[in-house]
């Protein structure tokens, strides 16, 4: 054996030894792990959401590659018809469909639609193919969303005329879509569309779009017809005197309700789409000859500038456009009453409506309009004032009563007449807690009953209030946990907080009450005074769309008798000064002409 062979053999043996040691260690490791560690199958939930899989795993570079690879299957084979580059830039920002146009060939269009709506996976979308009865017959198809569109309208006013009328008509018309729109389709809203972005918008909002073979344009027919709640009664703003209509969830019904109340050609409805993913329809309504143009501009600017995914309610929109998100009082009024919106519109304010919500926003809003109710104006002046007086008293009661009670019983006992203080002392004799704890216990219980009452289904909800309030209160007193006088205090406070006509404002007052209670518990009346000072300063510093929140009281501007006291309707001659409306005068100095006429007649 040569030297080389020996070396080779040694190497081989070494390698063998090395691999042997490696397997030996591997065996030991396996032995240890088998005996010391749990080897059973990992128990998993049925399904764990771990992100969107492929997309997350792929790096950015790979992402691009897969997009490129996927493209042939995603997009039709044919070269796409698109808008010129300058136009398409605009559209591309809004979504992928921006620049895509309707094709001449029906099968290409079908492919587009199938891809856009992921057909046939997506079962909501109906794609109905048919022949238009021309000579020779032309292939066509209609697309609509099942449930959003009215089937009978589609059958009667889209398919029927196209399939049966104008039988054997010779074709050779250059603008086929235009001809069909003008001569065949009897629907009251038919548009010729050629951009897929518009087409998808129409289909998504209940329309039916008809594609025709050989035509580079499609027809969008208005066939909205989903199930909707009918016009009902207001839930939160009920009145005895005055209309009983309330808004519902459909934007168009709501705009119609407002237009019905304000029959004026200057009533403008501007439409917007908010939200990138959902494109919620929103509208602003105002009287063009009244509303301050800069105000309209500001409202439009704020709404248009919102860049978000989804806005489903005016409550969300309100938070996007309000001036002071961290202040306790709301700066925008939400109402469900068309008559109220109408009265604000003729004052020169602006209404904001969002599709899918029965609450309409009013801007700008002042503190006082949040405290007024529609009924104040419908009742005769003395009664209206009585109601208002009661309501303003309710505000103070709801904010201050628990605080006052604590301040008086803890720090300023000299204020209470002797008999009463003896009664209070006797009733508190068995109570083991300090007054502040007692108040917080009961306030907490009350708020709990209120919140539970809202969440619990109808029938039980009503009874819960009675059960909660009566039995809990009675039991608490008998158990000696709270004093009977406190039950009265909490009950009156709760009642008063429900007398505030605006839902948001009543929340604001309820929140403030707790602050006042704490301040009163530490500093007595001095604490209440400090709280009031901060509250007043914060209200005075706020603005709603450029209008001071406490206007016309702070800053003092000219105003009609309609703040705390409500003057006679014929005395309210001018619109609020703070709105700077285009037409200040609401009615002439003498609006009751008959009073003058009578005088003249007598003179004669």
């Amino acid at each position, binding site marked *: 054996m040569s030297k080389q062979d020996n070396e080779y053999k040694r190497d081989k043996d070494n390698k063998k030894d090395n691999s042997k040691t490696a397997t030996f260690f591997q065996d030991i490791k396996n032995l240890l792990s088998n005996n010391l560690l749990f080897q059973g199958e990992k128990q998993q939930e049925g399904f764990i959401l771990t992100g969107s899989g492929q997309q997350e795993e792929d790096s950015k570079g790979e992402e691009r590659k897969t997009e490129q690879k996927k493209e042939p299957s995603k997009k039709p084979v044919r070269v796409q018809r698109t808008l010129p580059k300058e136009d398409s830039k605009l559209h591309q920002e809004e979504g992928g469909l921006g620049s895509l146009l309707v094709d001449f060939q029906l099968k290409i269009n079908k492919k587009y639609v199938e891809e856009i709506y992921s057909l046939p996976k997506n079962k909501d979308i109906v794609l109905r193919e048919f022949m238009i009865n021309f000579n020779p017959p032309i292939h066509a198809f209609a697309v609509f969303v099942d449930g959003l569109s009215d089937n009978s309208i589609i059958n009667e006013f889209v398919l029927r005329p196209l399939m049966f009328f104008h039988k054997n008509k010779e074709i050779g018309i250059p603008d086929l879509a235009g001809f069909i729109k003008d001569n065949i389709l009897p629907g009251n809203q038919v548009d010729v569309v050629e951009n897929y972005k518009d087409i998808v918008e129409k289909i998504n909002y209940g329309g039916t779009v008809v594609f025709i073979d050989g035509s580079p344009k499609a027809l969008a027919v208005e066939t909205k017809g989903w199930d909707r709640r009918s016009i009902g009664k207001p839930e939160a703003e009920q009145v005895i005197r005055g209309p009983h209509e309330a808004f519902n969830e459909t934007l168009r019904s709501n705009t119609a309700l407002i237009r019905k109340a304000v029959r004026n050609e200057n009533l403008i409805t501007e439409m917007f789409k908010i939200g990138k993913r959902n494109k919620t329809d929103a509208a602003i309504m105002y009287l063009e000859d009244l509303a301050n143009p800069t105000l309209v501009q500001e409202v439009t600017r704020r709404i248009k500038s919102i860049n978000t995914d989804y806005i489903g309610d005016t409550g969300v929109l309100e938070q996007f456009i309000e001036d002071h998100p961290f202040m306790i009082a709301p700066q925008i009024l939400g109402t469900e009453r068309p008559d109220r919106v109408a009265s604000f519109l003729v004052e020169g304010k602006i209404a904001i409506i969002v599709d899918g919500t029965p609450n309409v926003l009013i801007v700008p809003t002042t503190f006082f309009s949040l405290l007024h109710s529609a009924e104040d104006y419908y009742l005769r002046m003395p009664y209206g004032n009585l109601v208002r007086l009661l309501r303003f008293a309710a505000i103070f009661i709801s904010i201050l009563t628990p605080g006052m009670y604590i*301040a*008086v019983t803890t*720090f*300023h006992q*000299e*204020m209470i*007449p002797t008999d009463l203080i003896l009664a209070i002392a006797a009733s508190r004799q068995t109570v083991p807690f300090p007054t502040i704890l007692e108040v917080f216990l009961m306030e907490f219980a009350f708020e709990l009953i209120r919140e539970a009452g809202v969440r619990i289904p109808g029938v039980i909800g009503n009874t819960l209030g009675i059960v909660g309030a009566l039995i809990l209160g009675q039991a608490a007193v008998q158990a000696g946990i709270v004093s009977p006088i406190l039950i009265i205090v909490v009950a009156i406070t709760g009642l008063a907080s429900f007398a505030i006509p605006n839902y948001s404002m009543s929340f604001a007052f309820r929140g403030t009450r707790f602050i006042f209670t704490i301040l009163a518990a530490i*500093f*007595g*009346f*001095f*604490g*209440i*005074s*400090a709280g*009031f*000072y*901060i509250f*007043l*300063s*914060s*209200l*005075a*510093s706020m603005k709603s769309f450029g209008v*001071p929140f*406490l206007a016309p*009281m*702070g*800053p*003092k501007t000219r105003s009609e008798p309609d703040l705390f006291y409500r003057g006679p309707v014929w005395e309210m001659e001018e619109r609020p000064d703070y709105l700077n409306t285009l037409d200040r005068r609401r009615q002439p100095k003498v609006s009751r002409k008959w009073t003058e006429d009578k005088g003249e007649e007598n003179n004669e």
Partner: protein
Amino acid sequence: MNEVRIGHSEAAALAIICIGAKAFLGFPRFLAKMGATAGWMIILLAGIFSMVIWFGLSFLLQRYPGKSLTQITNHVVGKNLGLVFNGVILIYIIVATSIHLRLFSEAVVITALPQAPISALALLFLISVWIATHLGLEALSRSAAIAFPYLLIGVLAVLIALYPFWDFKNLLPFLGEGVTAVVTNGFFNITSFGEIFILAYLASFFSFSARRLRNVGLFSLGFVTLAFLFIVIVYLMVFPMPVATETLAPFYQLSRQIFLGRYFQRVEAVFVLFWTFTAFFYLSAGIIVSAVIIKEAVEIPYHRPLIPVLSIFIYCLALTPGDIVEIININRLLIVYGWAIIFAIPCLVWVLAMIKGKRGGPVDAQQQEEK
């Protein structure tokens, strides 16, 4: 120019509340000590004197429309001397505000919370004032205008509810300590109306003309003089002479006297709500005016960042005196000699402006150029 614009009613309300706030402290007693039964004449004379001075000084303000007294001082005497003049005024306002912070806190101890530590009460005053001043001068003046009528109703309610105790005989002898005492003290007491200079130092924030500012000032002074007169006369009528010089918190004593049947008595605690409210306005105005003076004297763009510093400084200064007696003595010194600063310096600036023949013209032109 400032973005904040304050209307004339807001300005007047703020001035009236700030001047009038001292009526809830020992001021009526102080007058009773100075002029005995003729204490009310002192305040009448002091009111008239201060109105005359304000009328004269308003010509200085009219020379420089849209400019505050700080800016005018800077313009008339130059920046360096202006810094000294404005600095003295600033120190005066800071000291006056801290004295009042202490006095108001002491008054809360006397009237409502006898066991509370003075530092805690001063702290609550300060926190509220801090928040309010942070929210801005506009908010402050607006809330003053809103609160003013209710505060007035509160004061009038106390005075009128005391009607059964009014005794005109207590106002005799008519001339009290004598004509000389009345006239001299009448002049020295103009310091009590020194807060009217809030209007002059905030002049750059007003949306109205300098001429109107003069009228606002005159109206405020006239109104406060009448209010003081009413309070002092009622005080002297309710409390006979030796007693009137001994009450620690005269207005509180007045409200304690109210007895309108079994259920409407001992309502003094309710009036804590009213007078502490005026205290908040007084302190807020003190802090915000100090901040504005600093801003305009050294020409920095904002005054808001100065507020926390000033607040804490005033708080510390307020707690420095040992006890209430000490602080009352300091306050007496301030009332008797304060005019030498708060009235004399603006008068000096006025005289200098007249001698130098300086007017607002060049400044305005410069301002327009800047625009």
